[in-house]
């Protein structure tokens, strides 16, 4: 890929000047669009602007002809053997009646995610897990799943996972390890380092190890909740976990709390939050979310009011709010935020006592956590919307202190043997601790992990760990509910679970994971019968293990400010939205999932605000060197609208040196700057431009809908279609139709010039088929996506990828616009303030137009309409002309320019969904509404209910992968022809609209307009249209 040197740069000053004179509602995709850079223009006018990239490669004509000749010869050879290759059928030796070949089985299990469990139901074909879904019975899942859960399957099949026990540099065996470790345990000086442990079995094993052999146990997890724990200590004098009941909250203030994207209760909070925002014609009550944060997050994007503040200033904001609520915070409160903002928040909280929540993120220091507990106490929220329980963790400790103690003992030579279970401390430990150097002083070190990673490399022994889908175990959810981790498959690479390793340390090297877990629960369950146990496995939850709410009394009454940090550029560390702390670095699905706001794939970047960028003379993709506390890293800059000024966000999890083929050597390592004293933010960073540019593969401009295209405007009667329909809840109450602006529902109204035949956009007149009596037959599939509750968490993107065998293409191909995701989540900004725009998300897959423009242009009829209204793609017929993609106004078709699907790696063959074709090079593909699920449901109905002819489906009988995964239930799929179905009801809503409906292509997927609930005190209803505009004046 050649460097784009002559590209017009984003001139922020110019953008501001232009925006200052703009009026009306204004949506924009990115700063590049505002600056009208060449790069953006290219992507808008041409789906694949860099053309056929293979011609750019230095392949001479001679080489080309040679290659062509060779492939012709090969083609000739295959033609000589017209016989189908012989296939073998290998039946079982001992059949089991429940094993029906070809039919999937479903098993409940639990995914341990940073120590906390999320219940899953995994689909398995002939013993091969192929798809993860949420478990409705599990309190942390509620039937939905996260991005990480969806991608877990790829990690399990990852051929890069370590496959052999290694001692120093030679391959060894588990038995040799068991033999070698016994004397070391007896010799004493043994330490165990784990991540957060909630597992009852592991906890009891660790306890008996501590008692029997004097082993000391340390915990460290970069995602650990140290500040929250210390904050609770300060406030209540005891260790408690805080839980929120967002389903009871009318007003929510989140202080850098990204509760919709991270944390053990992410799925639950997302659902509860969304349930209070599902606006229907007869339900117009809506909660209100205020977010104060430095880094733009998806929680901030959902906010009704968002205030960008430096992380180090958020404490002052919290103190101002506390003072406003009558809490004596002592000392003067710095005025950091606009006074009207603080006043409005305080008033709103006051008027919703007992029905409000103030949340604070782990990044804030313990003092802020303690203050927030006091605020919730004053508001009467405790016991109502904020509930406390005993800690879920088995041994809650300050993990940073625990690691520091361990490292200093290692330095002092007190540690003879160190056993690291999971985690990757050499990579994740704060830079000042110098864990790697301390590790070298330990005689015998053991690392159990999925990958032979940075830590394994420096340990004497490396043991391959069994993935959670391969091993027995147990784990507690955020609310304490225990559940069993049930394996779906025997370990692919002979890994051992943490429980098996601990048993080996206790001299039981051959203990099986199942026996260990079963033995523990036999002692702790009332009913130990086989039947009860099977019930637990089937349900996926151990009943009555949820922790009861605990009564707490606020003891901390003084609220000193945490040590003030100096001025200067602030540096903020955040977990990466896709690879987290780096543990998922080798997962191609997660690497290629665009980060929710920056849309960057395969990289991390230093995020800064437009103002700061202007001040420092930086633009996106400039390489800078960042110095903090004496350490320096080089990183590309990304200008991120909505970021706090004078602040710099670095995402952890990149710059791995030993992650595997996928994750090694991409991005930069932000841990190198992270200090144990200031783990989440600190001030005094310096930034210097070093020259050169690093291309970041942001998908933001890819597949852009070109609404300003003159041809489109001609088709739509000179109107510019509005892609996002949005409004405030008050406007909606006054006039539900107002959210559509001038464009109406996006339906074809009146006589418009159109290329296509006139179609009434009423479901009675839609595409389908009629019987002799004029009645509709069969289903008419359709979908509605509620933009008000979509958080853009990306779970649907990964679910679609897993269900439909969508390949990973790599950074170079993403740069060309060749990513293959069938769902993309478009991000739009609104407003004239580039430092704090409103953010909108729009998930978009194939919308299954009834008058699909792609169909008439296909010369081989490879894309055709089914009579249930699906726009079908027939891969075996496709010859790859790409006319359909060219003619698609939504740009949702994806073409296999290369052989993206990995057809050779053995383990990936097991992973694929056998009901969906694995596409080859040269084939177009796109969302099918999960047609395989529709067909399997139809077959099951006809087979098992005796229906014949046209099947009448129950509503909700067919659930596509995206709908199934969606944590907020923003996606609804069903038969739009059935007036009773959920989807048909939603299509009747006044705020339902068709995207680009002006084209009269009659899409089957429609959207519910995005509604906000602004505080009238901060935004007068009449000023909505240019609210952002006024803000920008205020800021400057």
């Amino acid at each position, binding site marked *: 890929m050649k460097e784009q040197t002559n590209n017009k740069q984003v001139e922020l000053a110019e953008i501001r000047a232009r925006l200052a004179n703009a009026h009306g509602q204004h949506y924009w995709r990115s700063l590049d669009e505002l600056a009208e850079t060449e790069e953006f223009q290219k992507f808008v006018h041409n789906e694949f602007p860099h053309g056929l990239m293979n011609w750019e490669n230095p392949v001479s004509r001679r080489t080309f002809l040679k290659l062509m000749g060779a492939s012709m010869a090969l083609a000739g050879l295959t033609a000589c053997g*017209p*016989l*189908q290759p*012989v*296939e*073998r*059928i*290998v*039946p*079982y*030796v*001992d*059949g089991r009646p429940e094993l*029906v*070949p*070809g*039919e999937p089985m479903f098993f409940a299990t639990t995914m341990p995610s940073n120590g906390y469990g999320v219940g899953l139901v995994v689909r398995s074909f002939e013993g091969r897990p192929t798809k993860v879904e949420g478990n409705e019975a599990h309190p942390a899942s509620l039937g939905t799943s996260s991005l990480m859960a969806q991608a877990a399957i790829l990690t399990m099949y990852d051929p890069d996972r370590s496959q052999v026990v290694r001692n120093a540099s030679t391959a060894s065996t588990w038995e040799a390890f068991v033999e070698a470790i016994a004397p070391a345990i007896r010799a004493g000086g043994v330490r165990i380092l784990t991540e957060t442990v909630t597992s009852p079995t592991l906890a009891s094993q660790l306890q008996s190890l501590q008692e029997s052999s004097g082993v000391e146990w340390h915990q460290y997890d970069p995602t650990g909740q140290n500040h929250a724990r210390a904050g609770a200590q300060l406030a209540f004098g005891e260790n408690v976990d805080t839980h929120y009941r967002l389903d009871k909250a009318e007003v929510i203030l989140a202080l850098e709390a990204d509760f919709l994207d991270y944390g053990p209760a992410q799925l639950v909070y997302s659902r509860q939050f969304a349930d209070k925002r599902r606006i229907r014609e007869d339900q117009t009550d809506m909660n209100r979310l205020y977010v104060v944060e430095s880094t733009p997050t998806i929680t901030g994007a959902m906010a009704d009011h968002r205030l960008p503040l430096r992380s180090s200033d958020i404490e002052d904001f919290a103190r101002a709010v506390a003072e406003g609520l009558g809490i004596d915070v002592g000392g003067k409160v710095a005025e950091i935020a606009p006074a009207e903002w603080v006043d409005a928040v305080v008033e709103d909280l006051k008027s919703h006592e007992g029905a409000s929540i103030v949340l604070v993120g782990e990044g804030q220091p313990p003092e802020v956590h303690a203050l927030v507990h006091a605020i919730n106490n004053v508001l009467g929220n405790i016991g109502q919307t904020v509930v406390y329980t005993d800690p879920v963790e088995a041994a809650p400790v300050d993990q940073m202190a625990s690691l520091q103690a361990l490292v200093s003992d290692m330095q002092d030579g007190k540690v003879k043997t160190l056993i690291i279970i999971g985690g990757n401390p050499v990579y994740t430990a704060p830079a000042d601790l110098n864990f790697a150097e301390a590790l070298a002083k330990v005689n015998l070190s053991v690392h159990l992990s999925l990958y032979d990673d940075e830590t394994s490399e420096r340990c004497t022994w490396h043991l391959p760990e069994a993935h959670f889908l391969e091993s027995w175990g147990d784990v507690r959810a955020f609310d304490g509910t225990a559940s069993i981790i049930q394996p779906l498959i025997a370990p692919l690479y002979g890994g051992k679970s943490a429980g098996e390793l601990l048993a080996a340390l206790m001299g039981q090297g051959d203990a099986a994971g199942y026996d260990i877990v079963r033995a523990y629960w036999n002692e702790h369950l009332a009913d130990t019968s086989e039947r009860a146990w099977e019930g637990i496995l089937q349900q996926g939850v151990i009943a009555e293990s949820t922790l009861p709410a605990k009564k707490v009394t606020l003891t901390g009454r003084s609220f000193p400010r945490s040590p003030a940090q100096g001025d200067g550029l602030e540096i903020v560390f955040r977990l990466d939205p896709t690879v987290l702390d780096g543990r998922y670095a080798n997962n191609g699905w997660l690497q290629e999932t665009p980060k929710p706001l920056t849309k960057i794939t395969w990289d991390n970047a230093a995020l800064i605000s437009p103002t700061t960028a202007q001040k420092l003379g930086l633009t996106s993709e400039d390489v800078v060197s960042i110095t903090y506390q004496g350490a320096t890293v080089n990183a590309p800059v990304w200008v991120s609208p909505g970021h706090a000024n004078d602040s710099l966000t670095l995402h952890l999890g990149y710059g791995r040196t030993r992650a595997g083929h996928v994750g090694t050597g991409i991005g930069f390592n932000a841990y190198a700057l992270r200090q144990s004293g200031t783990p989440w933010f600190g001030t005094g960073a310096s930034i210097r431009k070093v020259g050169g540019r690093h291309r970041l593969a942001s998908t933001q401009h890819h597949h852009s809908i070109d609404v300003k295209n003159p041809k489109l405007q001609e088709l739509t009667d000179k109107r510019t279609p509005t892609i996002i329909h949005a409004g405030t809840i008050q406007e909606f109450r006054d006039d539900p139709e107002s959210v559509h602006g001038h464009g109406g529902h996006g339906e074809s109204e009146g006589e418009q010039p159109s290329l296509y035949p006139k179609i009434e956009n009423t479901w009675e007149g839609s595409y389908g*088929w009629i019987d002799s009596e004029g009645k509709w037959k*069969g289903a008419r599939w359709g979908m509605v996506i509620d933009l008000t509750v979509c958080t853009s968490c990306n779970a649907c993107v990964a679910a679609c990828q897993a269900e439909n065998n969508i390949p990973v293409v790599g950074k170079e191909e993403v740069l060309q616009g060749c990513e293959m995701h069938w769902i993309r989540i478009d991000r739009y900004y609104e407003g004239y303030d580039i430092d704090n725009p409103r953010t909108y998300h729009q998930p978009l897959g194939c919308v299954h137009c009834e008058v699909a423009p792609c169909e008439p242009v296909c010369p081989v009829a490879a894309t*055709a309409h*089914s*009579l*249930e209204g*699906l726009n*079908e793609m*027939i*891969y*075996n*017929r496709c010859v790859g002309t790409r006319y359909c993609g060219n003619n698609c106004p939504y740009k949702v078709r994806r073409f296999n320019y290369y052989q993206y699907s990995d057809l050779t790696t053995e383990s990936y063959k097991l992973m694929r969904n056998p*009901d*969906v*074709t694995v596409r080859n090079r040269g084939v177009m593909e796109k969302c*099918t509404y999960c*047609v*395989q699920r*529709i*067909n399997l449901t139809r*077959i099951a109905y*006809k*087979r098992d209910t005796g229906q*014949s*002819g*046209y099947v009448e489906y129950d509503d909700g009988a067919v659930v596509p992968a995206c709908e199934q995964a969606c944590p907020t239930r923003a996606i609804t799929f069903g038969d739009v022809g059935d007036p009773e179905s959920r989807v048909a009801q939603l299509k009747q809503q006044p705020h339902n609209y068709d995207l680009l409906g002006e084209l009269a292509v009659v899409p089957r997927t429609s959207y519910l307009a995005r509604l906000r609930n602004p505080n009238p005190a901060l935004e007068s209803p009449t000023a909505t249209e240019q609210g952002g505009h006024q803000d920008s004046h205020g800021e400057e």
Partner: protein
Amino acid sequence: MGQIFRPSANVYAKVGALSLFYLIILVLLALAVFDRSNLIRRINVPRSQPVPFTHQMHAGVLGIDCIYCHSSVEKSKFAGMPSLDTCMACHNEIQGTFWLQWLTDRFEQKEPVQWTRVTDFPDFVYFNHSIHVKGRGLDCSECHGVVEEMTVMWKAKSLTMGYCLDTCHRTTWNIEQLTNCSVCHR
């Protein structure tokens, strides 16, 4: 110098060129026909199996129902091949030949038999047995022929897309839903 070619050579050349042209067409046609022939499509071509199992004895003479061995035919897309213990249910008692001993050895060594697939759809076809047999009530012989008379198994029908459409999907069943592409290709 005398002429090398006599005038009649023109005729030979013309006839030769013309015949070559027709020959090429003929060869191509023959190839096309050959490609579609029963031999290439393996229709009515007996397929050898690792063990000389005979449907004629089991299904014909003994009258064992197809579903006894192909047990998932009403539940799954795949009709199912009998696991070895299904064979041994009877052949524990019925013993005495070389091949039965071979089978017993396989069972005892837990080594599955690798059968040759006789009816093999291309990978882009998603055929489902259960809907045809249980849902639609088709007899196995509609597609598989008179299996109870076959000593060695062969494919009895072409089972091409044209066969499926012309025999049932577009004719006797006559439901538009069943001619949607995605019914078989996805």
